[in-house]
């Protein structure tokens, strides 16, 4: 069962967000509505993000990592 879908957007990005219960445990789903690309984040991964500073996310935001 999925929870209701939310869209979080600004001028730089658009992401769909919902909680997915189709696996053995709950996961947060992030989906790019343009490409359908998605990632399932488990609670430990989410906790790691919340303990991060925004500066720590720099390598993930860098568009050059997809070169």
């Amino acid at each position, binding site marked *: 069962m999925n929870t209701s879908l939310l869209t979080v957007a*600004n*001028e730089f*990005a658009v992401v769909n967000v919902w909680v997915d219960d189709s696996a053995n445990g709950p996961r947060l789903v992030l989906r790019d509505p343009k490409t359908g690309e998605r990632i399932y984040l488990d609670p430990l991964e989410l906790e790691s993000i919340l303990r991060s500073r925004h500066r720590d996310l720099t390598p993930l*935001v*860098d568009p*050059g990592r997809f070169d």
Partner: protein
Amino acid sequence: MTVEVNSANDFSDLVRIDEGLIHSSVYTSEAIFELELARIFHRWWVYVGHESEVAQPGDYCLKWIGRQSVIMTRSEDGTIHLLMNRCRHRGATVCQADKGSSHFFKCQYHGWTYSNDGELIGLPHAAAFGASFDKGSYGLTRVPRVGEYRGFLFASLSPTGVPGGQNPPVRRDPADAVQGQLEAGRPGRLPPRCHPSLGTRNQPASGRHAAWEHDREF
């Protein structure tokens, strides 16, 4: 009747202080407007905004200093930055929205991405710029001079300004009077079709317009 500024930029015929007369062309002349941009808005201190407009880390909003678009941001450490809204790659505007919340800004033109304190944190295909390319040298340009008084932010596009103008020209008593009481609402933008000084002239510094037209709001 249209009266243009003369070749010597002498305004004495248009502004007669002793008589309390200002010719209407002061507000409509394109030539005078260009002079104001060059002499005042692109050189002197200009009021930019209030710190409460970017109350939370990640908040940003766009401002204008003369014809230059400026990003007013608050970074993760709480510092407010004034950055030229111009990508260091091809000069495109990096932020388009009047306001938002984002710790990173990505130029839509080629993807150059900046942290909200102005640092260039990444770009696609950086190797194409050669081994000597230094991201640290291509952050968003900072507004040369920034001043703050009681949360009011001022900036100057000139690194040197004018003689005697090293500090923002703040009338301290009004700023002191509202200290701690002022909180700007969410940034918005009205599309005025009028002379840029009209807003300033209608601020409480003038007083008469506010007292006449907005008396119920006080």
